[in-house]
């Protein structure tokens, strides 16, 4: 059964300017690169315009990295959830809750129990999110929206609305405030977790199952993939990552507080979508999400260095996010 190898051309990319479904299906192609180009362009613009304001100073770049790290860690996990065709709106609230539980455990029982408390918070919440979504079949948008309120309320109730001071030096150093040489530990967290997440999505059967579940749930199930289990795992993953983020917040701000992470869900999803992951599942990259988070971080930093008003910052940020994508796209065409 040999194929003749003459005839039809062989060296071809599948995608031309006229590809059938311009708006639709081509998207996953171009999206992959947009964020890198957009990031590079915005970075260069700021590097030029803000050269006299310390934008390029090592300290400022490390600041950007630090400020972005926690969002980036949640974004990595969110990549899995979005790739699986689900969403998790509760990440910010879980981070707040975990900062409270680990903070309380730290002051009462010490370091190891604090870490255990933080992680268990994430695992428990994630298991609830995952079960309700995967087994009961309630849309994850509603489940995690409900959980967002619940976790926030629980954190508020547990801490009695006060911040929980975090004063253990080891905890503070490991979670968020320490450095190894010149490198902030927060950056190491991103690098290590990022490498793990990237490998998991790209190179393991688990990652394949995530992508397949989001890319075509019916086809995935017909291929023997337990799509519910996959969704459960994805939501468990985000919640756990969010609880790590909560401990990082606690370490960085030296206090646990239920409001920490408020509004993060939107920044995290924005980072992931900027990074080229489809909100509809089936395609995405961890590295893209990290760069997406960095892009948002660079924009925030640059606008502050520019000395803009809050209102001008808001406007400029909106414009730049759209512009980064638009520029990134046009560069590729």
């Amino acid at each position, binding site marked *: 059964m040999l194929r003749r190898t003459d005839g039809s051309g062989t060296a071809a990319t599948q995608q031309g300017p006229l590809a059938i479904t311009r708006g639709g*299906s081509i998207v996953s192609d171009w999206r992959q690169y947009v964020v890198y180009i957009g990031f590079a362009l915005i970075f260069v613009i700021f590097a030029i315009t803000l050269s006299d304001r310390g934008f390029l100073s090592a300290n400022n770049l490390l600041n950007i990295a630090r400020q972005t790290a926690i969002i980036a860690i949640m974004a990595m996990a969110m990549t899995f959830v979005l790739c699986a065709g689900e969403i998790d709106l509760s990440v910010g609230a879980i981070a707040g809750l975990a900062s409270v539980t680990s903070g309380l455990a730290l002051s009462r029982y010490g370091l190891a129990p604090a870490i255990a408390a933080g992680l268990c918070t994430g695992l428990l919440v994630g298991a609830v999110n995952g079960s309700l979504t995967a087994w009961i079949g309630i849309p994850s948008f509603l489940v995690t929206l409900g959980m967002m309120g619940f976790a926030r309320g629980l954190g508020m109730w547990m801490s009695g609305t006060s911040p929980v001071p975090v004063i253990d030096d080891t905890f503070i150093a490991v979670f968020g405030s320490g450095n190894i040489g010149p490198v902030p530990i927060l950056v190491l967290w991103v690098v290590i977790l990022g490498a793990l997440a990237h490998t998991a999505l790209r190179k393991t059967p688990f990652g394949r199952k995530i992508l397949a579940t989001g890319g075509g749930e*019916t086809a995935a199930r017909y291929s023997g993939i337990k799509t519910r289990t996959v969704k459960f795992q994805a939501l468990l993953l985000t919640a756990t990552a969010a609880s790590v983020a909560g401990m990082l917040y606690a370490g960085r701000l030296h206090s646990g507080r239920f409001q920490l992470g408020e509004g993060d869900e939107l920044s995290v999803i924005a980072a992931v979508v900027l990074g080229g992951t489809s909100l509809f599942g089936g395609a995405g990259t961890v590295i893209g999400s990290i760069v997406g988070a960095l892009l948002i971080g660079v924009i925030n930093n640059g606008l502050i260095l520019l000395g803009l008003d809050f209102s001008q910052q808001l406007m400029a940020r909106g414009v730049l996010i759209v512009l980064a994508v638009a520029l990134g796209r046009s560069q590729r065409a």
Partner: protein
Amino acid sequence: MIEASNAVEMTGIKKSFGGLHVLRGVDFAVKQGTVHALMGENGAGKSTLLKILQGILTPTEGSITVFGRQMNSFSAATSRASGIGMIFQELSLIPSLTVAQNIFLAREPRKFGLLVDDRTAWDRSRVIMSELGMDVDPATPVQKLSTGQMQMVEIAKAISQDARILILDEPTSALTGVEVERLFSLLKRLSADGVAIVYVSHRMDEIFEIAEEVTILRDGRNVATAPLRHLEIQDVVEHMIGKRVGSFSWRPRSVDRTRSPALEVQSVSGPNKPINASFEVHSGEVLGIAGLLGSGRSELARVMFGIDAMTSGEIRVKGQAVRIRSPREAMEAGIALIPESRAREGLIAAHSIRTNLSLPRLGDLTRGPFLDGTKEAASATGLIQRLRIKATSSSVPVRTLSGGNQQKVVLGKWLAMNPEILILDEPTAGIDIGSKTEIVDLIRELADEGRAIIIISSELAELLAVSDRVLIMSDGSIAREVSREEISVAAGEPNVSADEGVQIAKAEHNLQVLIQEVRLNAPAY
């Protein structure tokens, strides 16, 4: 005889996707009032050419004239306005809308000029569908239909447009003889009324039955255009793929039925269908399942594969009762299903050929905790060659493949599993004649290796060519079981001189009669 004028003239059509030149200068003309077949192997560019005509794709070069008027802008709306209607190979239905809403999509009957009149749409759908012999409530959402029924809706949608040029791109790949007959009588009436019809199909007998002329595409060019009455099947095939291949052949095989069966299905019922189905398949046997549209063949397969719940009955594999509540469990019991709907059940369209191929057996392609990229690529390349999938590389998304090549990916995905029990639901839908005969051979080879195979096919010739035994389903029940001998005996004369093709054709006719009979004798509920 007066030469009918050309309804469509396409000249020098070129089309490339990126660097891939699919059409390299095609000339194609269709006369009014004729049925014109467009032939070519999988990936030859048929669908591409027709989508250009329908305004969905813009050609890289070339000109198109419709009823003598040059087309300058390309859009689905302009083509529709100039009287072109099309049945798409990949279907153009919106699953969440009802049958009637789909049939009249974007040209709904109006009430007060402003509101859509669903009532009228419903009535008119009812009429069109009963004309096609289809008995489905037009208020049913399309996502609840079986693949074959969707194809009928797609046909109804195109026909209801009263197009003067009607394009049918593989309208019948999931339809059985009866529906095809109905469609053909309709097409004949339309062409008699002067409608120009372009017909694409890989079922050769259909072409010879309905079409008057044929154009054959190969390597991006039209290599032949001729009236069909001057041609034999073998000539057409040779033009298409460059060599003569045999059509379906019928070689008797012997099956050892003394050992215990590989699969026993005992009084199995599903949520709706099947009803109380019992049968068994032995190792080395190919069991065919025939039946009319909606008779529950696919649902039987789904129950066996753990997708639909089994409400009663028992399934035994190698004598052992097995619980199958999910595809995973079915796979663990050694059962694989090649599903009917490639778009929905078989493939993840945005993912590459390679990832699609490895999806059911990720566990086999790992080294340690990681996927073994080399092993995966080698396996994909092997399958692409073995099934002659036409693609530039294994990393292109399957949605960029032609319909037939997509179907081959679905096949490859499951063949690589090497399951003990293989269920194939319409496995060759859309696959060209050359590959189809090879796939029939392949299935028989698998049986020879000792696998138990169940095949569901609406193309009876294929079903007969491959099966050792045939079950006939009707309204969810297994109404009859026939062996090949019975069918050929029923054919009347023992096969002495007739060649295999003729034999198959006869048997096909007999099977057709049996299916009808079963349907008529079915108890009224």
